[in-house]
């Protein structure tokens, strides 16, 4: 494996994504919403709209929602008042799958630009005439898609943790976030989701001819994460530590198949694009 070539290609691709405003502007806005505005809304809104007594009303809605928490989380809510339960439930439990949007979005955008953009800009042929093997080219592009997606996700996670703990300090009176289930989510599931986004971009890129088409199609993957959000919020699925590990394992299995297909399609797709 010629790691120098792989690194050069990854750096070049990252540089090109940075130059593509259509790619990075949404990638900058969405994290702001998810890791800053959303937790602030969850934590501060009940206070802003609460009765003049200043204490959030332990109303039936909160009670209904918090009743959805799985047994694994009951211990985390034990001994908390309703305001604290709301903070933990909304920002520590319901929001968890929302952060998974980030690795998916980052990697699929970078992947679409890297794989389809190369073809769209008619630079693929010159790349194929270099000594780099198909595997090295593929790996360089995977690194350019997945690694920054993960770094941005983890940075967003750190910001999210700071926002949640700071905004909820008056209610919680301690650093309570992240809870146990978040660690496997970030370390195990987020890389799997990032790989899924990249693999999907590769598969889609073999069917479309422009970055915008690929960008729009990879956007449909959001449905997967939204399904997790809804399932989590309605109690159908609970991302406890055990379930998170299982979900991650399932995603990695899907990734393995998609990457295998992606490598094959990348070679064929490259040649097909030239034919």
């Amino acid at each position, binding site marked *: 494996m010629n790691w120098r070539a792989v690194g050069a290609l990854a750096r070049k691709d990252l540089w*090109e994504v940075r130059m593509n405003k259509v790619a990075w502007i949404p990638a900058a806005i969405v994290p702001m919403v998810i890791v800053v505005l959303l937790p602030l809304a969850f934590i501060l809104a009940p206070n802003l709209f609460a009765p003049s007594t200043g204490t959030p009303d332990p109303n039936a809605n909160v009670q209904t929602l918090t009743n959805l928490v799985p047994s694994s989380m009951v211990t985390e809510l034990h001994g908390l008042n309703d305001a604290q339960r709301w903070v933990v439930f909304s920002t520590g439990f319901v929001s968890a799958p929302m952060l998974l949007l980030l690795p998916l979005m980052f990697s699929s955008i970078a992947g679409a630009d890297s794989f389809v953009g190369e073809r769209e*800009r008619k630079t693929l*042929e010159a790349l*194929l*005439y*270099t*000594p780099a093997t198909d595997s090295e080219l593929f790996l360089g592009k995977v690194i350019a898609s997945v690694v920054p997606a993960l770094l941005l996700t983890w940075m967003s996670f750190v910001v999210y943790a700071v926002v949640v703990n700071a905004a909820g300090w008056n209610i919680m009176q301690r650093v309570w976030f992240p809870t146990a289930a978040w660690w496997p989510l970030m370390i195990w599931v987020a890389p799997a989701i990032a790989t899924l986004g990249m693999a999907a971009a590769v598969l889609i890129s073999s069917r479309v001819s422009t970055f915008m088409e690929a960008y729009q199609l990879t956007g449909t993957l959001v449905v997967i994460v939204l399904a997790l959000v809804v399932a989590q919020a309605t109690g159908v699925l609970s991302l406890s530590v055990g379930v998170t590990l299982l979900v991650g394992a399932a995603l990695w299995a899907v990734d393995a198949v998609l990457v295998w297909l992606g490598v094959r399609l990348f070679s064929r797709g490259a040649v097909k694009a030239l034919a």
Partner: protein
Amino acid sequence: MDAIQTDALSRRYGNLTAVADVTLTVARGEVFGVLGPNGAGKTTMVRLLNGVLAPSAGSCRVLGLDPARQGSGLRRRTGVLTESPALYERMTARENLRFFGTMYGMPAGKLAARADAMLEAFGLAERADAKVGGFSKGMKQRLALARALLHEPEVLFLDEPTAALDPEAARRVTELIMEFTRQAGRTVFLCTHYLPEAQRLCDRVAVLNRGRLIATGTLAELARTLWHGTWVDVECLVASAPDLLEAVRVVAGVTDARLDEPDGTRLAVQVEGEERIPAVVRAIVERGGQVVRVNAREHTLEDVYFELQGEPAHAQPAVASETSGRGGRR
């Protein structure tokens, strides 16, 4: 050892045969042209010979390596210039060269110096740090040629290198190709349908049609297989005797003759060899012709090409119609 050898090389895309049973050799240091219309299989040949595509049948070796199995090692020793420059337009000229140099495995220290030297040699030093997107087509193609030569390849593949350029830019690129290949004794595999360029650059040519090799050789060799004898144009000052044509036709070694002007001031004579020309001139003079100009026609690559493709060359209508089908070229 030959630089390039192909043996019944074939490549199909589904039902379409792009290259069919092509067998040829290119010697080291030779400038070899592959001529043919669009869709003749030229670009597919370049891809096959660089291991970008695998053959459907047959085999090929470049510098003794099998491109399909040893493509990576081979591509370190070859350079390719395509019709489209395929440069990263948001990067500068220097960044493009450095990126591709790294992809070709050049050591960083050597790469920086070599990239600067190439930019200088190709007249791009002043724009080295400008984004390629702002370059003219000619500048982009010069930069792409610099990229193809950056790692000092032993074999240079040029696929329609000047097709998209205006005449001035094309001439500049052609001059650079000559300068950087002849001096270094590089093997060049030039695919083109720009025939003057091929005639100027190539030692030998192969002619492809619909993926099949229909002829290969030097211009003189190809002309000999197509046309027997040489056409000579004779121009006289005043009208010649009415029986001039008959008198010329009976000269030994004359195979055909015709009047280009009815009054006999211009005629074309086909002779077996140039040594027959004095006898022809003598016959004309004996009939009162005052010869002012005698010109033995030389076949151009264009004549040869169109004859091989089955289309009479405009410059040689009589010859083409007379010799069509001769020569065992298929």
